[in-house]
């Protein structure tokens, strides 16, 4: 049964230090309120998996010292430039980075979704991504001849954390087109979700809505967090706050500036809810 919690802080308390934590791309709703709650609770040694790429979620957690490892296809603030805390952490070897490519992350999560130990993937051969991954394997396609292909081990996150437009008390969460969130929930040992609102009734009872819903079966805990994706957006609900993200990018060029940002926008505040 899904636990219905009252705040992002309670969600963050369920994600232990050292967890392998899967997080969605910025175009799927991100639980920024959950990320801020992790910073507030002083999470340590998180191992982040970007599905498939990162922006400000990884920036905040890395800058606040919550992260020991990260696996992702990219970290970027998009039109606001490079991700300064990530770049700094790499240059000063504060975190371990495992570079990968987007479809390798999707495939490795699908392996866990399907309960198989690996998935094959085309591409990659001849890249330095592959050359630097001793956890991957290259072998012949057993149905081909002289046809090497990459074997990727399944990735099973300890937890996944994301935001949804709406959920219900049964733990069902509407995600619409953002099916990567469903794969993440299926593949992870636990799935934690903040939502804009908890609606009456059962999201699975209407066939139109059900088609875009993750059943509560896969959701460990849910909590309401109004504007919980801010400064990122929720498609069809609110836009990303580009002014604020630009302000972040400016401040985060230095650790001092980042600390000031954290103090003003994260640690000195309790959750918006």
């Amino acid at each position: 049964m899904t636990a219905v919690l009252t705040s992002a802080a309670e969600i963050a308390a369920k994600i232990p230090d050292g967890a392998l934590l899967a997080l969605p791309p910025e175009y799927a709703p991100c639980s920024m309120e959950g990320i801020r709650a992790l910073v507030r609770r002083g999470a340590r040694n998180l191992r982040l998996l970007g599905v498939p790429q990162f922006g400000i979620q990884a920036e905040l957690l890395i800058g606040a010292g919550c992260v020991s490892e990260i696996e992702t296809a990219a970290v970027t603030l998009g039109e606001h430039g490079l991700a300064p805390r990530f770049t700094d952490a790499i240059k000063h070897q504060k975190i371990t980075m495992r570079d990968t490519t987007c479809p390798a992350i999707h495939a490795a999560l699908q392996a866990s979704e399907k309960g198989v130990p690996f998935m094959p993937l085309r591409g990659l051969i001849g890249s330095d991504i592959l050359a630097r991954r001793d956890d991957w394997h290259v072998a012949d396609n057993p149905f081909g001849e002289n046809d090497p292909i990459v074997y990727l081990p399944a990735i099973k996150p300890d937890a996944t954390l994301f935001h949804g437009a709406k959920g219900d008390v049964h733990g069902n969460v509407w995600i619409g087109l953002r099916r990567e969130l469903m794969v993440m929930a299926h593949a992870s040992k636990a799935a934690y979700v903040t939502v804009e609102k908890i609606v009456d009734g059962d999201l699975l009872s209407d066939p139109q809505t059900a088609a875009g819903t993750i059943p509560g079966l896969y959701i460990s805990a849910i909590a309401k967090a109004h504007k919980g994706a801010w400064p990122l957006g929720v498609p069809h609900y609110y836009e990303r706050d580009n002014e604020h993200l630009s302000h972040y990018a400016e401040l985060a060029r230095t650790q001092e500036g980042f600390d000031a940002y954290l103090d003003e926008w994260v640690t000195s505040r309790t959750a918006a809810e």
Partner: protein
Amino acid sequence: MSDVMSEVRTEELMIAVIARMLSGLSHVAVGAASPIPGSAALLARELSGGTLRVTLLGRTSNPTFTDGARELFDCAAQGRIDAFFLSGVQIDGQANINLVSIGDPDKPKARFPGSFGSAYLYYIVPRVILFRQEHTARTLVSKVDYVSAPGVSEENLYRPGGPHALVTGRCLFEFIKDKERFLLKSLHPGQTVEDIKRETGFDFDMPEGSGVPNTEPPEPDWLKLIRGPVGEEIREVYPEFATRMFGSS
């Protein structure tokens, strides 16, 4: 050159050059951090009379895909994407691209976002168009420091896709697969062969015969489309690019 033409910005010229290469295709996808290719794809769609389908990653209105973030890659694997676009912090003469770091990757002098889907799509999509506005010996190098994705592969490797051309702020290169080298195809306004040689860190081939042609400028009605509906549509995904290029909405 008309007054309109003299005001063509480099980005607009690149958009037109890329759009020409998309003529006759069925489905073009545009990945992250690609405002110029995105605009080119939308322009090509306008010019196609609606037969070209354009998928812009990161857009939420008018979706092409309904199966989540993996669908771009699955769709390409199914042979349903004809062209894609990649850039690099470094691109070398064998069309290797680097999206990761400068110097030793373990102790990099500079770190960039990462390889995104390049290490897959570069192998799979038939027509991959490389683009990089900054054309200097710093960006176009003799050998990349890190191979996010290689330009060419061994014969036996499954690789239906690969590099088709490289569009920069100075010129257009075509990639010749048999030779594993770029061929200088056309010069943007104001550029000479000597400029290109000086600013390019890798060796490239010259066309046979009488010199290098000039890059064909955009048609006047193309510029109207770029500055009008295309610019408005690209704003959804690239608001800063659109404002810089076309002003506020």
